[in-house]
């Protein structure tokens, strides 16, 4: 009887322990998901507790692969008209060669979401702005289409809409005569998804998106473990997008 009792209590202990450890294993993901999702109600202002950023690993970025470009443009309704000089490009693939060693790298280029964005400084109306969480956006309602931000951006990250736009996505309004660029898929971020279309599309795991202010986020841990660099770091813009292995 007492043995039975002991068996039962042991079984129940094991059961509880298993459940507990399962919860302990899954919880952080669930909790983090909830934190990301619940961090902000739609009516609540964005805060600087979070800073969204991205790490791009040139070693993992595959030759000839442009899945991130396709996914971004599909997600945001950016259609190419076969005129690369005037077509909008929120993200582009660039292949580089080290002048000294001859090593080649492929990387996607997108808005670098600078802490000190020159595009925001020069915008006469304040249409170019940076959210508290580090995402640099254009308010299409007050952009007058002067293109000064494009003159100021060191990364050629911005596009002026040269032609009528069709098939717009509800979450990514666009307009002829205004300027636009990568939004870090702000609609997904605000919906609590904590990711972007390009990151989701990258099957080579070359892109990691997350909160740079959270030391436990994957992007922070990766940045902490191995060296990375900012493009044109001499300009001291402290970009949200970092590159590894270039």
């Amino acid at each position: 009887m007492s043995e039975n009792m002991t068996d039962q209590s042991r079984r129940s202990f094991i059961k509880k322990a298993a459940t507990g450890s399962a919860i302990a294993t899954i919880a952080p993901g669930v909790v983090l998901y909830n934190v990301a999702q619940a961090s902000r109600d739609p009516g609540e202002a964005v805060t600087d507790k979070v800073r969204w950023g991205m790490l791009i690993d040139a070693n993992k970025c595959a030759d000839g692969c442009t899945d991130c470009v396709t996914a971004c443009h599909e997600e945001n309704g950016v259609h190419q008209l076969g005129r690369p000089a005037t077509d909008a490009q929120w993200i582009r693939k660039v292949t580089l060669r080290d002048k000294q060693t001859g090593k080649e790298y492929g990387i996607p280029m997108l808005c670098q979401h600078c802490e000190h964005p020159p595009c925001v400084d020069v915008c006469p109306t304040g249409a170019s702005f940076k959210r508290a969480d580090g995402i640099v956006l254009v308010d299409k309602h007050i952009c007058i289409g002067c293109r000064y931000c494009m003159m100021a951006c060191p990364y050629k990250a911005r596009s002026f809409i040269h032609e009528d736009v069709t098939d717009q996505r509800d979450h990514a309004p666009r307009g002829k005569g205004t300027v636009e660029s990568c939004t870090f898929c702000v609609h997904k971020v605000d919906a609590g998804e904590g990711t972007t279309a390009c990151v989701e599309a990258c099957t080579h795991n070359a892109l990691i998106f997350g909160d740079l202010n959270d030391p436990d986020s994957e992007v922070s841990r990766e940045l902490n473990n191995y060296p990375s660099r900012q493009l044109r770091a001499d300009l001291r813009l402290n970009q949200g997008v970092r590159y590894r292995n270039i």
Partner: protein
Amino acid sequence: MKPITYTQIEGKSTGYWALLGVLGAMILAGFSASMYMEHHGHHVTGMTNQIVWGMPHIFAVYLIVAASGALNVASIASVFSKKAYKPLAPLSALLSLALLAGGLAVLVLDLGRPDRLIIAMTELNLKSIFAWNQLLYNGFFVIVGIYVWMMLEKKMNKYTRIAGTAAFIWRLILTTGTGSIFGFLVARQAYDAAILAPMFIIMSFSAGLAIYILVLMAAYKWTGRELGDSVLRRLKNLLSVFVSAVLYFVLAYHLTNLYAAEHHSVEAFILLGSNGGGQYSAVFWWLQILLGSVVPLAILFTSLSKQRLMIGIASALVIIGGLAQMYVIIIGGQAFPLEVFPGMEVISSGFMDGVPAAYSASFPEIVLGFGMGFGVALIMVVIGVTVLRFLPQSLADEVVDPHYVAESAEAAA
């Protein structure tokens, strides 16, 4: 020196109406070009996502720069109390207002959303030099407007010097702002230089004066009023100093860049035409330096400038040279590829990284820049001198030259 009588021009001749007609047609053409660009989008122009400022900006910035320079003649009279320039002052102020209006008209009509002009004026980001420039441009209209009133209204003449000084200081700040549009662009190799602001000021001196000389000569010739050699001699001597000063600044700018290894490639691009910069080095050497600076200096510094026609030609060449300089600065500066990946060579890119951007000005852009810009500026001058007393009845030597007797005696001796 006799008292100066200012009168309106009659404005009834066939020639007068023909001139208004031509200028009106230029404005209409410029406006149509702008509507065409707005309707179809900017892809019908030569502009791209790399050359985002094209031909309209060359005319707009040139006219805005020239506007503040055209005020120099008035400043010399009011601020520095040179009597000989006094009769020339009201036209100088009118021309500066007109040139600014012409330049701004082009700038606004080239916006992606010109219909949002009101937003541009009400939503100001004060960290932007563009926003500051709006305040400076609007302030210029007000201050120079008051200055004109002080000059034209006899009762207010005593305040001319104060208003003139305010306008003079304002115009220096204004052109500093215009030069800083480029000077503050840290990312681009051809810009990001403090010297651009003072260089734009000296460019404004030469551009404004060259246009002033041509407008003055045309106004007096077409209205049959007398324009003495004394006035023109002073103005052309001044022009030669200004053109030389611009050359000095151009030299200082390029020498500074040539000293820094990081700027070698952009200098080779502009000065030698390497890496696809051929059209910019051609415009630089042939139009800006040779035709727009050396030839006018050769005319202005020699006895060739005794002929009025040659002074007119020299002034016109200075204008061409100034527009060429704007082309090299604005288009050349954008065409040179951005150094996004220092130390790396770009093998391929979905957006033409690492290669010079191509630009060829489209017809609508030129029509907008030239037609609207010069059309608005000149029609304002023509209407201005018709309705208000801007022009002295005579600018003959005995009327304007304080040293007239002495000089003519000297000449006789």
